[in-house]
């Protein structure tokens, strides 16, 4: 707990003259969940893809576990991406291989890091399917035969099987039924706690961050307008935009 796992300083990404995100700085500490909220086009997804190495920022630094991510060779960054990092896409089909079985989807990361024992790989896959509440007898089914919620849980299993330390999530509950969302959130919360995961989660759903995130960052037009403890930002918002965002949520 002595150093941040991820440290971001003055990150900027431009699309020509347009700002994707600019002057973003934060530290993420081990075991911490950081929520990033903002409306569409606020730069939150741009920021996430810069952090995960899918896009190259134009300025600023990203330090992971003391290492300069932007100066890393691509080999090293991709190795990180399939061992210590994980990325959960909003649309499960972006993060899954739809043409191969659920077991192979979960096993892929293990095989990518050199596991060569079929029995062990399959056992790990079954174990992880169980942890995300997918029955063992679905292990040989393709994800295309799964419901949206199951696909999303499969994507999570596929990502967490190598025991990553840092997880990026892009709207992981987007597009799911409310009841399915709750189940997924509960699952994520348990996994985050039990595996000590550090998480950066992008969402526009304030209920999701209230339940999942320790800290909150509010973005507007590519800039961070406010950050702090999640319940503090939501209950005592300081910035005009955050106040608008919070007051716009329909009460149920």
């Amino acid at each position, binding site marked *: 707990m002595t150093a941040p796992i991820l440290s971001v300083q003055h990150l900027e990404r431009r699309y020509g003259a347009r700002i994707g995100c600019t002057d973003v700085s934060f530290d993420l*500490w081990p075991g*911490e969940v950081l929520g990033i909220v903002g409306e569409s086009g606020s730069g939150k997804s741009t920021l996430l893809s810069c952090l995960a190495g899918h896009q190259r920022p134009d300025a600023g630094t990203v330090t992971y576990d003391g290492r300069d991510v932007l100066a890393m060779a691509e080999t090293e960054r991709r190795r990180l991406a399939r061992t210590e990092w994980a990325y959960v896409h909003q649309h499960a089909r972006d993060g899954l291989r739809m043409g191969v079985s659920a077991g192979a989807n979960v096993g892929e990361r293990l095989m990518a890091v050199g596991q060569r024992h079929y029995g062990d790989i399959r056992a790990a896959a079954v174990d992880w399917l169980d942890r995300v509440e997918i029955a063992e007898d679905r292990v040989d089914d393709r994800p295309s035969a799964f419901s949206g919620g199951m696909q999303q849980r499969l994507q999570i299993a596929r990502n967490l099987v190598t025991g990553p330390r840092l997880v990026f999530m892009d709207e992981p509950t987007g597009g799911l039924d409310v*009841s399915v969302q*709750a*189940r997924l*959130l*509960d699952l994520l*919360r348990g996994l985050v*706690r039990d595996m000590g995961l550090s998480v950066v989660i992008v969402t526009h759903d304030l209920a999701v961050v*209230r*339940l999942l995130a*320790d*800290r909150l960052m509010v973005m507007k037009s590519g800039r961070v307008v406010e*950050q*702090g*403890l999640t*319940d*503090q930002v939501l*209950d*005592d918002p*300081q*910035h*005009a935009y955050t*106040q*608008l965002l919070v*007051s716009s949520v329909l009460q149920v």
Partner: protein
Amino acid sequence: MIQVDNLSKSFTLHNQGGTVIPVMAGAALHVDPGECVGLVGQSGAGKSTLMRMIQGNYLAGGGSIRIAGTELVGAAPRTVTALRRGTLGHVSQFLRVLPRVPAVDVVAEPLRALGVAQALARERAECLLWRLNIPRRLWGLSPTTFSGGEQQRINIARGFVHPYPVLLLDEPTASLDAANRQVVLSLIAEAKARGAAILGIFHDAEARDAVCDRLVDVTGFTPGRAA
């Protein structure tokens, strides 16, 4: 254990013409270990606001809040998170939980966050559920479907499942029947006996008289009124 000095707070309503509403000025109080202090004052005088600031839920405008030696005003979020995890317990009036999670796990959650093993955490949670007269058949159900009184007791169980050195209680006995109120009062007494510093809001005068060693009137902290 709780030391509040010269605390102030105002709300700025950016979307209503930038209206600034000062809600607190010069607030000061302290709670020692083993002591229970009650906040009193008219409705709207700022009891809940003060509690929320001490809990870190509201940002302070100025002044100082020290919990077990840690300064809360201007503290980094992770400092507050760490404080809440192990030191600063809290019983609110509202239960905010995920649907689907069983009551016993809702109560055990603060212990799980502290790294207590699942079995032990559940055992401690079950103890409290039993003491608070939550029927055993409800333990495995989500509290979202519970009655107001049952939800309140789940909240209380969460606040007492770990021996927090500092406890903030917001109306812990509201919507409880006499028997359960008595259980809560003895939980508070036990916490005091082990040296916890407790700050509470009790509308119920009988309960207040039973557990509070001192009362602090927040009316004096309200800007405008004080003048």
